[in-house]
C-alpha cells in the first residue's frame, strides 16, 4: 500500500497501523444476506416447459385437429391389424395403388393403427385431453380439500389437529392403488368416479403437506404477534398464514399432478380406469399390449407410453427447478 498510512509504530507486541479514513464517512450496518435470487428456468426446465406446453395445446385442440375420430377406422377395407407405418406395404384405399409410407400420410394415419384398426395418432390426441383433464380436476379437488383441512387443522389447535391427523394417517397408510381399486369396485369406472376417487385419495397427501406448512407458519413470531394484538382467526388465516403458505403449496401442485396422472394411468392400464372405447393413454397401452408381447408391432404401445412419460417427466423437470430455487425444501417435505 502506497497511500498515506496514518500511523505506523513498531513496538515489541507488533506494529500499529491505522487505515486512511475520511472523517465524514459513516460506517453503516453491513448487509449480511444478499437479496433472494429471481426464479429462472434452467435448460432442462425450458425443455420441460416446452414439452408440457405442447401437450396442453394438444389436450385442448386435439379433438378438433385429429385426422380421424376417436373410434374411426382409417382403413375400413383392410382387416389386417396393426397398420404400422412401414415402407412399401400400404395401399391407397381408393386406387389400390401401393403408396408405401406415403399412403399413410395420405390417409393421415401417421402412427399406424391399433388392435382394433383405429388411428393411434388420433386416439392419442383425444386421450390427451382426457388424461390431463381428469388428473387436473382431481388434483384441484385434492388441493381444495387438503388445503382447507390442513390449514384448518394447523389453526384449530392441538385437539382438532390430533383427531383429523390420526384419521388422515390411517388413510395414508393404505397404498393409493388399493384405495382406488376398492372405490372403483364399489362405484364403477366412470370418469366422475375416477376424478372424485383420485381427488379424495390425494387429499390425504395434500392435507399433510398443507398442515406441515401451516404448522411451520403458526409458530412464527409474526403470527403470535397478531394473536397478541387480538386479531381474529379470519385475519390470521387470510393475512398472516395464507400469503406465506401459498407459494410453497402452489409450487408443489406440479408434483402432485404427476402422481395423479400416474395413478389414473395405472388404473386405466389395469383396465379399471377410463373404459374403452374411450381413449386414455393408460388403457391404450393395455389394449395393445398383446402387439408388443407377440412382437407384432411396437408403436401402439410405445406411443401412449411415451406420451405419458414425456408429460410427467416434463412437469418434473419444471418442478425440479422450482424446488432447487426453494432450496430443496419441497423435496424434503414429500
Amino acid at each position, binding site marked *: 500500500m502506497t497511500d498515506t498510512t496514518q500511523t505506523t509504530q513498531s513496538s515489541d507486541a507488533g506494529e500499529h497501523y491505522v487505515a486512511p479514513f475520511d472523517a465524514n464517512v459513516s460506517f453503516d450496518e453491513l448487509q449480511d444476506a444478499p437479496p433472494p435470487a429471481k426464479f429462472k428456468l434452467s435448460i*432442462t426446465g425450458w425443455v420441460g416447459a416446452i414439452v408440457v406446453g405442447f401437450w396442453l395445446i394438444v389436450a385442448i385442440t386435439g379433438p378438433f385437429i385429429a385426422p380421424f375420430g376417436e373410434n374411426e377406422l382409417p382403413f375400413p377395407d383392410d382387416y389386417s391389424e396393426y397398420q404400422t407405418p412401414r415402407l412399401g406395404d400400404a395401399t391407397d384405399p381408393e386406387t389400390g395403388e401401393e403408396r408405401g409410407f406415403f399412403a399413410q400420410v395420405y390417409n393421415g394415419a401417421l402412427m399406424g393403427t391399433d388392435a382394433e384398426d383405429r388411428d393411434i395418432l388420433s386416439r392419442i390426441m383425444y386421450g390427451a385431453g382426457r388424461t390431463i383433464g381428469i388428473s387436473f380436476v382431481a388434483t384441484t379437488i385434492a388441493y381444495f380439500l387438503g388445503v382447507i383441512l390442513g390449514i384448518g387443522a394447523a389453526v384449530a389447535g392441538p385437539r382438532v389437529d390430533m383427531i383429523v391427523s390420526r384419521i388422515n*394417517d*390411517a*388413510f395414508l*397408510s*393404505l*397404498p*393409493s*392403488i*388399493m384405495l382406488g*381399486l*376398492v*372405490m*372403483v*369396485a*364399489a362405484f364403477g369406472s366412470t370418469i366422475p368416479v375416477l376424478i372424485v376417487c383420485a381427488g379424495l385419495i390425494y387429499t390425504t397427501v395434500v392435507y399433510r403437506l398443507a398442515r406441515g406448512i401451516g404448522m411451520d407458519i403458526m409458530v412464527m413470531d409474526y403470527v403470535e404477534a397478531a394473536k397478541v394484538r387480538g386479531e381474529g382467526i379470519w385475519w390470521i388465516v387470510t393475512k398472516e398464514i395464507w400469503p406465506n403458505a401459498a407459494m410453497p403449496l402452489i409450487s408443489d401442485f406440479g408434483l402432485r399432478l*404427476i402422481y395423479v396422472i*400416474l395413478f389414473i*394411468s*395405472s388404473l386405466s*392400464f*389395469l*383396465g*379399471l380406469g377410463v373404459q374403452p372405447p374411450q381413449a386414455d393413454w*393408460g388403457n391404450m*397401452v*393395455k389394449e395393445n*399390449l398383446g402387439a*408388443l*408381447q*407377440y*412382437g407384432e408391432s*411396437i408403436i401402439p*404401445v*410405445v406411443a401412449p*407410453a*411415451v406420451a*405419458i*412419460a414425456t408429460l*410427467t*417427466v416434463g*412437469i*418434473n*423437470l419444471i418442478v*425440479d427447478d422450482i424446488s432447487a430455487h426453494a432450496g*430443496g425444501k419441497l*423435496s*424434503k417435505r414429500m
Partner: protein
Amino acid sequence: MYSMILKRLGIGAITVVAVSVIIFLGTKVLPGDAAQIRLGQSATPEAVAALRAELGLDLPIYQQYLQWFGNFITGNLGQSLSNPDVQITSLIADRYENTLIVSVLTAIIGVPISLALGVMAAMFPGSIYDRILTFTSVTLVAAPEFFTATLMVLIFVFALGIGNAVVVGSTEGKDLFQLIAHFALPIATLCFVIASQLIRMSRAAVLNVMSSPYIEMAILKGVPRKRIILRHALFNAIGPIVNVVALNLAYLVTGVIVIEIYFGYQGLASLIVQGVQTRDFVLIQGLGMIFCGTYVVLMLAADIAAIVSNPRLRHPK
C-alpha cells in the same frame, strides 16, 4: 429407547386395526350384499335371507366386523363371492408365490445397488457421473411403470433379442439364478422404478448430512474424503436412508401390480383385478388387508430403524 419402540409398535397395531376398519366398512357401504351377489338377481328373498343368516350378515355391523377380523387373524379369509366353493385362502396360496419372488428379488438386487449409486453420487456432487445419474433418475422417477417396462422390452427383446416380452412357464424346481432369469424383465423394470427414487433420495440424505457443521469440521481436521463419507456421514444418514428404503419398498406394492399385468404372469395382482371386475368383495377385503398390512409393517420397520440408529436415543443421558 425401548419404550419408544414399544410405542411405535403400539401405533403400528392401532394402524392395522384402523386399516381393517376402513377396508371392512369400505366394502360394506357398497350397494348390494354378499348373499344377493352370490345367489344372483333371480334368487327368492327367502333364499337370500337364509344365506344372509348363514353368513352372519344379519348381525349388527360391529359384530360382523369382529367376526371378520377374528377370522382374518386366524387365517380364514372366507369364501369367494363369485365362486362360493373356493376358499380365498386357497386362491391366494396358489398365486402369492410369483408376486413374492418378484418383490423379494427386486428388493435384494435393487436396493443395495441403488443405495451404492446414490451414495457415490453424493460423494462426488457435480461430477459428470453425478449429473448423469441425477438426470436419469429425475427422468425415470416421473415415468409410469409401464413406460419403463416398455423401454426394457424394446431394449432387451427387440434390440438385443434376449428374453421374452411375456413371462411364461412355471417356476417349479428352479434355483435362484434360474428364477432371476425367469423373471429377468419384471425384476429389471421394478429395479429401475425403485432405483430412480432410491438414488435421488439417498443422495439427498447423504448430501444433507454432508452440509452439516460436523462434516466441515472433519474436513478442517484433514480427514480423508473416503473416511468422511464412510465414518462421519453415512452413520448419520442411516435414519433417513432407511426411511427412504421403506417408502420405496412400500411403493413396490403398487409397482408389482402393474408389472405383473404388463408381463402377464400369474400372481396376486391379476387376482385383485379379477376381484374388482367381478366385484368379489370378500376377495378384495382379504387381499387389501395383505397389501396394506405389508405396507404398514414396512413403515413400522423404518420407524424403528430410525429410532435405533439415533445415538441420542440409543445412549440416553
